[in-house]
């Protein structure tokens, strides 16, 4: 059983990796959601699947469709850029993280 502080730290770490800001207040609700989600995971994990081939697609079919190399340039990029918190000279500005 993971203690509440450990859960908070885990969720903080995951949110940090996913680059989300999470406040302490958010964490209280997130821990509840985490508990409920992990109960579902426990149910799934209890199912015996060792000899079952994973199903990747709802339909086990192959396609042969490939898109022709044509440009359809729509000018939605300005709308897309509105999602950015910060911009500079048309660039999206983010905190520096070098990987």
């Amino acid at each position, binding site marked *: 059983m993971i203690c509440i502080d450990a859960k908070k730290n885990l969720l903080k770490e995951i949110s940090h*990796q*996913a*680059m989300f800001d999470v406040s302490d207040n958010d964490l209280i609700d997130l821990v509840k959601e985490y508990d409920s989600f992990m109960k579902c995971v426990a149910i799934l994990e209890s199912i015996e699947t060792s000899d079952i081939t994973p199903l*990747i*697609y709802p*339909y086990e*079919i*192959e*396609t*042969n*469709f*490939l*898109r*022709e*190399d*044509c*440009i*359809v*340039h*729509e000018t*939605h*990029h300005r709308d*897309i*850029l509105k999602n950015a918190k910060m911009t*500079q*000279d*048309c*660039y*999206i*500005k*983010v*905190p*520096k*993280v*070098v*990987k």
Partner: protein
Amino acid sequence: MEFEQIIGLEVHCELKTNSKMFSSAPVTFGKEPNSMMNEIDMGMLGTMPVLNKRSVELAIRVCHALHMDIDEVLCFDRKNYYYADLPKGFQITQYRRPLGKNGYLDIEVDHVTTRIQIERLHLEEDTAKQIHYNDYSLIDYNRAGIPLIEIVTCPDIRNAKQAAAYLEKLRQIFLYTDVSDAKMEEGSMRCDVNISLRPFGCDSYGTRTEIKNVNSISYVQKAIEFEAKRHEELLRCGKSVLQETRRFDETINETITMRTKSDAIDYRYYPEVNILPIHIDHQWVLDIKKQLPLMAEDREKIYIEKHGLSKREAHFIVSSKEISDFYEETIQFCQDFQKIYHWLSGEVQSYLNNHHCTIYQTKLKPIYLSQLIQYIKEDVISSQQSKQVFDCVMKEGKAPEVIIQELDLRQILDSDVIEEIVNHVLDVNASSIQDYIQGKKKVIGFLMGQIMKESKGQVNPKMANQILIQSLQKRTQ
């Protein structure tokens, strides 16, 4: 104890398509940041990636050129990581089933041919371009989604020279198959180096380090040389090499730690659920092979065996695809292969070096070069005049014929006219005749210079020389 270097290379190459790998946004370079992307590239909810046919065709061309087995079922996977260069939080790639497997490339270093086995070639999408400043980064998603191929060698490379030869030859394949402009300086071809050392005779591998994103062939060589020396120094001191990812700092010619194994990323690969397996037509794969253009080594062979060029001359021409293409176009008008080579390796190459441009960026056309060679052959202009005509062609882009007329450069071939000029020169240089009588043969060179000056370089030098000697003999009898 002597150590052996074990090197494997991973090369990324951007494919020359009009639109992106999974979206119809345009593929561009140097445009306004974030203006060449759409909802699919940004991974917005509700969008679906659809694979670009041309990207598959170009990747198959490279598979054929590298003698690979081709998987005719295209399967894609998600490589998950959270980083600003991919807004989706994952990159679409081929992890389980690469398009090509088990290929090879023969390289030649110091007259020794070595076969480098190629493990895999897979398709994936490029990431965004990032510019890092002290406390923030700027992101341009125009590059996100451009089709890439990644080619991974087996650990068959044994030194920096072989690595450079492999990269040169691979770059040549990208250019000759016309799949990419393969400009390392612009990032359309990038290389990661894996290197480890082991004592000669040892079967097992040592701990390897990876050097990421090296962006020139000479930097790859320098990075390998530095890293091999660093490993060797550690091993000789009884220390161990850490498994880590490093980068090459070209300002100090050294590699620097980026992350160690403990920080290694778990990419949690899993099948890309939005793209069903795609079965590609077997006949299409065969047709692509049939239509494959001639590679550099095929052209080199033709230039030696059919055009009579030496290996060195043929190698010079094929070492640049553009020069080779220009040569191929020129021989449609003129079959004087040797003369074409001399022009391309001489005046043309010198012009390209001085002007930092490629041959197709100049005003020279294959037909102009063939005409220039023909006019010299027919004695319409002298070889000296041809250089003047060449300079004008490069400057003004006019046909040689027009330039010859405009500058009145046509050679004087009329022997009476030449004789008149020769006699005039002898009349005003009487002392030279005395020198000639006294056996000073060097005077002929001086008199020829005066004749060329008098005729403004227009007399045919061969005829002028003959008439000069005849006239001197007459005057001394």
